[in-house]
């Protein structure tokens, strides 16, 4: 529950709250004047639904709040509300997200700008409430935009970005924000809450134009097609996803201008990389223990190490990733996910990074790490091991290179 701290009036535009990532998103829902949301209980995402319910009950926002009979219904409800012009919000976690898979797949196919959070959670069985990214990643090919947040602040900011980018006519694709279960969904941080006036400057009204489903606009949406039509429709999705990169850049620049934060790059968050020989790359809250390790190892051993945190997994910012990573001797890719049977048995991000760098004449050694599955904390000894192995790879120890290491697993 958000506990209101005495507002510091730190700037003209914002107040502060002590809020979890879920509660921060609920504030974003309020500020975005969402019209319809559908809820269904599953941990750890549903804190956002509980927070939203409180806001509605206390008159802080006017949203049609529908408790669905299951995740499939949940995602179908908002998809159809979106089609008649409502700004929507939805979310799930783990197997709940998978229960909605059919709806998730077609939402992207239909080019409907649904905004969701995925409170990343392990898929059970085996059951755990802790975080893994496979739920979000499972939809990576389907046309959803997939950003990951590091802090509750970023969660709120990404939500506002999400409606802005998703609803942009050049994109018109759904967005699912990855929030690490427990660390982000449930932990309270100081969050700056923008004012309505500022948000209104950033977020235009949702306008489907001639795609609106309404008796004044007679259309048929999604007739049955066959091999004579489907490739053209998919090509349109491809074009939209390509456009998304530029739209994200525009929106990010606007966001910085209005709210005064967001980092230099919309896509990457670099930490101590200026003089680094070796970096690790990952997404979500794993960056936090890694940053602690960087400071410690630099101090203790003088290692020139850094971190690149990937903010948007889809669209994959290939150009930015390549430009950044090719500066280094070695890159340790930390996957808080698994991809059994993949090349070199690496995680999803590992193989994407390798693919992105493949055509570079000069490219770093890439080492893969599987860490933090099921919400296992990435503790400092593990972080040290990750850097040590990556540095070994930088020195030409190939055994540490073309392979993937499971970190912190009991034998």
């Amino acid at each position, binding site marked *: 529950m958000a506990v209101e701290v005495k507002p510091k009036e730190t700037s003209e535009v914002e107040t502060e709250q002590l809020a979890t990532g879920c509660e921060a998103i609920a504030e974003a829902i309020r500020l975005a004047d969402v019209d319809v949301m559908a809820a269904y209980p599953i941990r750890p995402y549903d804190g956002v639904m509980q927070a939203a319910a409180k806001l509605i009950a206390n008159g802080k926002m006017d949203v049609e709040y529908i408790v669905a009979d299951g995740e499939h219904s949940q995602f179908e409800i908002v998809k159809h509300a979106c089609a008649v012009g409502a700004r929507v919000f939805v979310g799930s976690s783990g197997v709940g997200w998978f229960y909605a898979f059919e709806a998730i797949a077609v939402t992207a196919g239909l080019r409907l700008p649904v905004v969701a959070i995925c409170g990343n959670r392990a898929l059970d069985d085996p059951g755990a409430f802790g975080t893994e990214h496979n739920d979000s990643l499972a939809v990576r090919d389907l046309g959803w935009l997939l950003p990951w947040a590091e802090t509750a602040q970023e969660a709120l900011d990404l939500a506002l970005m999400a409606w802005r980018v998703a609803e942009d006519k050049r994109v018109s694709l759904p967005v699912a924000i990855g929030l690490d279960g427990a660390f982000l969904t449930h932990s309270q941080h100081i969050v700056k809450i923008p004012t309505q006036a500022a948000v209104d400057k950033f977020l235009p009204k949702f306008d489907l134009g001639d795609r609106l489903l309404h008796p004044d606009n007679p259309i048929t*949406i999604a007739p049955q097609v*066959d*091999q004579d039509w489907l490739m053209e429709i998919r090509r349109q999705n491809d074009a939209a996803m390509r456009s998304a990169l530029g739209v994200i850049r525009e929106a990010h620049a606007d966001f910085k201008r209005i709210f005064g934060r967001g980092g230099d790059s919309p896509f990457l968050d670099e930490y101590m990389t200026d003089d680094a020989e070796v970096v690790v790359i990952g997404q979500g809250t794993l960056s936090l223990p890694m940053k602690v390790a960087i400071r410690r190892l630099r101090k203790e051993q003088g290692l020139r190490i850094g971190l690149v945190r990937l903010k948007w997994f889809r669209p994959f910012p290939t150009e930015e990733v390549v430009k950044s990573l090719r500066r280094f001797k070695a890159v340790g890719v930390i996957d808080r996910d698994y991809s059994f049977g993949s090349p070199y048995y690496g995680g999803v991000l590992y193989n994407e990074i390798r693919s992105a760098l493949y055509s570079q004449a000069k490219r770093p050694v890439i080492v893969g790490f599987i860490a933090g599955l099921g919400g296992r904390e990435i503790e400092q000894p593990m972080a040290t091991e990750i850097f040590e192995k990556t540095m070994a790879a930088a020195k030409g120890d190939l055994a540490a290179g073309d392979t993937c290491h499971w970190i912190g697993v009991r034998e």
Partner: protein
Amino acid sequence: MAEDRSVSIEVVYRGIFQKTLAQRICRSVVLAARKKGHTGTAFARYGDSPERNGVPAKQFAVVAADELELEASMAKYEPSVVDVSIAVDDTLVKGVESWAWYGRQPIWKPVRANGWLLVTSDKKPDEVLAQTDTAERPYTLGIVPGGASFAGLWVYKDDHTDFRVLGALAKILPQWIALDDAKAASLELAKGDRSAVASVQYGYDSTTMRPVKAGEGTSGHEVLQFKKPGWTTMRPGIIVEARKPGERNPYYKKYGARTMRPVVNFDTCIKCTMCWLDCPDECFEVTPEGHYEVVYEACIGCGICAQVCPVKDCIVMVDELKFTDNKDKWQLWKQDRPTYNAWFEDMSGVSADPKRGAAGSVPPNANPAANPTTSAGGDE
């Protein structure tokens, strides 16, 4: 694809009603040819599925000298060129419109020059040819005697159409299907019933061949062709414009699905609205005098109107091959009643005189074989 290395055969048929028949023909082609050691494949066209009653569909049989030759016909939806096209309902010669944007294609479209078009029919070759699109290249029209064989999904009507067709194929493709092999394959399919063999022989002997030169046929059928748009002009979000009020779907007319069409006796019509009300295809339009006329561009010949009409022989279903256009007819009745009524009587075989009415049950020229029957019970 050299003619001595493989042969492709298509069966064009009325969806569902002739699905099993088409399957039996295609399979028996492959199995008969197998007896000489040829290999082959039989498949239905995926885009037709799920089939709809009456909507034209296609199945194929490709026989090849060896597996390598057969590969050219694999992983494809349909052969672009066939040696033989078999239409198992003669009304199909008026053209094939299988789904939206498909257009109306001449029955001989995929048939190679000097190939064959076999048609099962009780009519003479020239009657059938008169309703076939003007030939662009020469082919041979073969009439396999017999009316259209219609059945349903669950109960097959075994009237030996498949055996007669196989006999006809043995006549025109002896290098692929020997007559004896056709007989042997048919005997197996018929589970030992020797009358199947006789039917194969009958098809072999009695199929009438009529060579057709380029330029023969009719130009009276509608040209219905489309150019498909590309991804840059298609509306985003999988969206097509709705139909406008009063408009009928221009991309799919569906009249090619009918084997019979209703003719209306406006003199006996009591304007009860039932035909209009109960038509699943919205084929009736009200006239200024309150009659309901059939829009032949939309009618698919289901026969519900004839059944629900409370006036005997006010609506009569008539063999589609008797008609050469899709013009609506009420205007003719309005302007020249005697001519219209004469036309009605000529087509339906029923008197248009309200006082006389039809004493008999089935009009003499409605082909019983063209009436799909049910299974058990059926027309009782």
